[in-house]
């Protein structure tokens, strides 16, 4: 690798900004025209610019979970199909996790840009389509046991050929999705975004000339590689281990372990997953790109610096997995949950498990860290058409060295927004009783965890089918450096006429508390979704009494909790009894 001259950096900085701006423009267009709330409210997509070989040069930082797939989206097609078989005006689409995808809902589109008959670059995007068929509405089947149950699987195929739509492909896709009108709109949003990207990138290439662009694309990747290597070099060499587990895989009752050995060696890092469990029967497995994505995202959090994100950064990292394990699923294993439940676990193993040893000032305690995917669908009684929705919840972050965890936040590996209650109820036949922070559940600590959320929703229509793919039903987010653990995921149901909430194991006989599909609910049934609160950081007995008091006044904790968890005595007129607090705390230290 040749290190670029320092004074080139300014030019590269500007080019990088230009490319990221183009990706932003592509993203805005996609957001504003998409049909599924998961696109337009949830922003669950990425936009890409790739070099002539398909290597990632720039991306809009919307959903980092797609980082791994971004690195492989184009290179895979080029390898399998051969760039010599592309033609100007082609647009390729695919979603196969066994060909470099993350999971099947995420569709990748690639458009080659030709100048004088030669490919100079590609623009692309990756987006989560809300419904792609399969065994359960919402295409998130926790109990799928092979990929054929997870929806319509597309190898690289042409959606457009020489500028004309390939109608047969469109017909196959739209016939196999439950909500084809949505899919149709979302596909158009993706296409519109590609065309905008193509237009802008062509302008840029014209301005700078093809040879210059080719050279700069290479330099940008070298540049990113050099910077991440510099950052890694500054870390102490060493071998660090972390482990996390799934409660179960939705099929059996045993936990599944992920085991990571992180080796920092000079200016590179090895993430070695040797020793992780064999792949599960259920859908919690991850393809290799998801493991790569989680490792890179964890590292970027770990470094905590703004780095240009392109293919260069992956060259400083090696990810070791064994085929046939939960970290590198072998065909035909199911894997829709790897992206949403497994990847965040990897990130947390790095930013909490390992960073608490290596750099505790920057670490966080355990985060709520489940997407709590809640899928539902049914036939709209008014239109007689299928409706389906992919829903997720925020959770509590872990406490930090000087800060409490943030409450109600999306997972660290994603950056999606929630669906407002008023939009939710306008579109789907549910009634919310409650959408609130789950008070009293934060992991205590000198800095406490953030709070998860609690949502009670009642079925208004005649029948709705629901499915859940979540975790953390049995293992709480950990506290670190003396902090207490956070709280568990709860998925409960109260049948019409009953006044008792039950978990789905009791109510429906599901194997898992947090993974089941196609439970039919009827009018008046109420579902309760509770996401976990984060773990605490540091000894709760060291928490500033004024902060404990403030939490009592704001009803985040009770007076009883103030005493039990923090050793802080609150008087009947709601002040801190400092003397009694000192005594209570000294007894426990």
């Amino acid at each position, binding site marked *: 690798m040749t290190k670029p001259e*320092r*004074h080139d*950096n*300014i030019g590269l*900085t500007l080019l990088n*900004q230009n490319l990221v*701006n183009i990706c932003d423009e592509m993203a*805005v267009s996609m957001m*504003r*025209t*998409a*049909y599924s*709330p998961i*696109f*337009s*409210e949830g*922003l669950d997509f990425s936009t890409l610019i790739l070099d002539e070989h398909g290597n990632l040069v720039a991306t809009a930082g919307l959903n980092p979970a797609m980082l791994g797939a971004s690195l492989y989206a184009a290179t895979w097609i080029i390898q399998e199909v051969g760039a010599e078989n592309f033609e100007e005006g082609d647009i390729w689409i695919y979603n196969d996790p066994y060909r470099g995808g993350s999971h099947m809902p995420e569709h990748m589109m690639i458009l080659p840009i030709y100048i004088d008959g030669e490919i100079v670059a590609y623009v692309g995007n990756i987006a989560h389509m809300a419904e792609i068929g399969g065994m359960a509405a919402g295409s998130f089947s926790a109990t799928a046991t092979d990929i054929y149950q997870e929806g319509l699987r597309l190898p690289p195929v042409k959606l457009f050929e020489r500028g004309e739509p390939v109608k047969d492909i469109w017909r196959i896709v739209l016939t196999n999705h439950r909500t084809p009108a*949505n899919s149709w*709109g979302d596909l*158009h949003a993706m296409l*519109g975004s590609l*065309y*905008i990207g193509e237009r802008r990138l062509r302008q840029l290439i014209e301005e700078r000339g093809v040879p210059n662009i080719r050279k700069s694309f290479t330099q940008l990747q070298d540049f990113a590689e050099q*910077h991440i290597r510099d*950052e890694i070099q500054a870390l102490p060499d060493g071998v660090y281990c972390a482990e996390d587990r799934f409660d179960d895989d939705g099929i059996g009752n045993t936990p599944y372990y992920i085991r990571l050995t992180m080796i920092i060696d000079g200016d590179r890092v090895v993430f070695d997953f040797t020793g992780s469990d064999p792949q599960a029967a259920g859908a919690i497995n991850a393809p290799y790109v998801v493991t790569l994505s989680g490792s890179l995202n964890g590292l*970027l*959090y770990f470094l*905590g*610096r*703004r*780095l*240009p994100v392109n293919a260069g950064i992956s060259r400083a990292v090696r990810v070791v997995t064994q085929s046939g394990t939960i970290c590198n699923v072998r065909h035909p294993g199911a894997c829709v949950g790897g992206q949403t439940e497994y990847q965040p676990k990897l990130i947390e193993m790095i930013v909490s498990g390992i960073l608490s040893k290596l750099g505790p000032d*920057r*670490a*966080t305690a355990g985060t709520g860290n489940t997407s709590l995917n809640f899928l539902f669908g049914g036939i709209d009684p008014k239109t007689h058409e299928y409706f389906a929705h992919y829903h997720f919840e*925020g959770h509590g972050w872990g406490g*930090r060295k000087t*800060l409490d965890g*943030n*409450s*109600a*936040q*999306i997972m660290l590996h994603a*950056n*999606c*927004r*929630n669906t*407002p*209650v*008023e939009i939710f*109820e*306008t579109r789907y036949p549910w009634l*919310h*009783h*409650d*959408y*609130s*922070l789950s008070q009293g559940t934060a992991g205590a600590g000198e800095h406490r965890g953030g709070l998860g*959320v609690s949502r009670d929703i009642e079925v208004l229509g005649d029948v709705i089918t629901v499915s859940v793919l979540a975790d953390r039903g049995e293992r709480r987010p950990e506290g670190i450096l003396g902090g207490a653990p956070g709280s568990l995921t709860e998925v409960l149901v109260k049948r019409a006429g009953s006044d008792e909430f039950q978990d789905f194991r009791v109510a429906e006989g599901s194997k898992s508390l947090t993974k089941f599909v196609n439970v039919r609910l009827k009018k008046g049934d109420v579902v309760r979704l509770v996401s976990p609160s984060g773990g605490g950081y540091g000894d709760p007995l060291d928490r500033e009494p004024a902060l404990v008091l403030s939490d009592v006044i*704001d009803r985040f904790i009770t007076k009883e909790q103030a005493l039990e968890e923090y050793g802080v005595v609150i008087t009947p007129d709601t002040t801190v009894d400092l003397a009694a607090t000192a005594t209570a705390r000294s007894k426990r230290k």
Partner: protein
Amino acid sequence: MTKRDDRSWRIGIDTGGTFTDLVAVDSSGNTILRKVSSTPAKPSLAVFEALARTEVNLDEELERFILGTTIVTNAVIQRKGAETILLTTAGFEDVLYIQRIDRPKMYDLQWVKAAPYALRRNTIGVPGRVLADGSIREDLTQADLVAVGDSIEALLAGNADMAVAVAFLFSYLNDTHERLVGDYLAQRFPDLPISLSCDVAPVWREYERTSTTVMDAYCQRVARGFLQEMTKGLEDLGIRERSALMKSNGGQVPIDHAASRPIDMVLSGLSGGMIAGHFWSQQLNSSRAVSLDMGGTSADVGVIIDGRLGFSGTHEIEWGIPITIPVIDVTTIGAGGSSIAAIDYGGLLRVGPESAGADPGPACYGKGGVNATITDANVVLGRLDPSFFLGGELSLDADLASKAVEGIAQELDLDLVSTANAIIAVAVDNMAGAVRLVTVDRGYDYRDFDLIAFGGAGPLHAARIADRLGMRRAIIPPSPGLVSAFGTLIADERIDQRITLVRRLDDPSNDLPVALAGLANALVKSMIEQTGADQADVLAETSVSCRYVGQNYEQEVRTYSGHLDRSFELAISIDPNDPSFRVSLTEAFHESHRRAYGYALEDQPIESVYLGATALIRGNPVRPQPYSGEGKRTKRQVCVDDGTWVETDIIDRNVLKPGDQFAGPLIVMEPTSTTYVPPGFTMQVDDARCLVLSKGVGE
């Protein structure tokens, strides 16, 4: 509005963080400019000080006085408003804490979610539930009202100076419960400020609506206090009835009517610049322009499309704290003269968003700042004259500027001048990026646009930004540093309203045109009540924001513009009896979608989401004549963009006459700003005395 011939002076004042600017112009263009230090502790002092320093006889010669103020803006940003009680639908008390669950940037484990403006301890859940179709599922009883009142009484016992915000689910469809609570509380607590979401922001998405309503309540006491101060002072001067305030929507409102919705003042101090940008675009027959108001800490970017200024339904106070009211469409980025240059990672240069502010300010201010800023870089390059900053009121220390920039140079392993040029290049690119996004976001190509640059720091960088993007021309209006104050005195009187009404356009029975006409009528009526104007002077405009059924974002389609009681100018009749309404709206929506995103889905059904209406009375345009004709021409060494030093003409703007033409490099000096014309650019002075910079040799 009565107008007497001898009352020919209009005065606009813009209160900024550091200076309070005054521009007075009479009907023949005679112009007075004043700048006084702001008095943040009591902002009205500086306003009256500035008024006292004009030679205008206020009692006899003043036609109108318009104030743009940042008082509400600052109360909001510095969190100095009233402690606010929030009433929500029971079960949804945490709406301000949950927000939208996303975050502004990746890979930052130390990020802190924006703190709510109403605390959980001051939040009360209220029974009663409206459904998504507007029907009432659960009633709000008298007993519930009493219980809420009792809870509020208990809170007021701890702090009597609170305010109340009420935001219930689906109140934009059915406001019964909010009105019940509002009426009950108004009776029981006559002095308590109350904001209802159905009045403040009757639009969907509960977090955004609640956030907006809380912000309104939060500002009520501050706004009241300030307006009382102002009203009293203006009364003493005998000009209260001739005084008005700038609103967030870029319009002015008589000061006696300003207190009704304080959130309308959030962008008061900012909209003058946007209005002036629009005015100058009209003077130069520029139908598409981007205005760039670059001051000390930030740059405000506005868009003019087809001769119209952009408006928006939403604005962010800080990341994650939205307000959804009709506002002038402005994008603010952290690029101003005091923006700090820093080395980001392993050698990448970054400029802003951190700012040295006014205090300590750039290193060259000599007030203890050590960070290199954009202003320091301009001093190093010789583009700013250290002895003539702000017309000589502040003298700059060139050595301190060099020292600060040298620090960056060492880290970059570059020489001083290349580093200063690099700082400018990065700042220019940041601003170009903002210009690019605001145009593209609206579906337009920036290469069809002019750039209108002002504020103290805008004219130094305008040519480079325009060049970077291939924009048509860079235009520098007269007295660039006082353009915001000038904007206030030409603003329209304006009332806007936006409501949510979801209706399918293919449903022939829908009530869209009726609702739209009703909304426009109501606003025109309020305008007449507020100003005493003739209906003939009041213009109405309406729009419908639509989307394809299934989409989640909407595109605004303008439907009507004209006098409600006379013939209309354009577009789509909103006469409820005219059957062409639905068809025309459908076609116009397809067209607007096609223009913005490159395609239309002709066979897809369309639905409305928002209806918008505006009532306005056009302001009177005047052209200021601030230039005396006297001044010097000198020369000095200036470093141009490729790093070479060139003996450059320095011209006092006072001597420039319409028709003059110069080739760059050139520096134009005036007290409030400095214009840099790079080599390869031509500068022409137009009839309105704007400087028009374009690439290449002039005609």
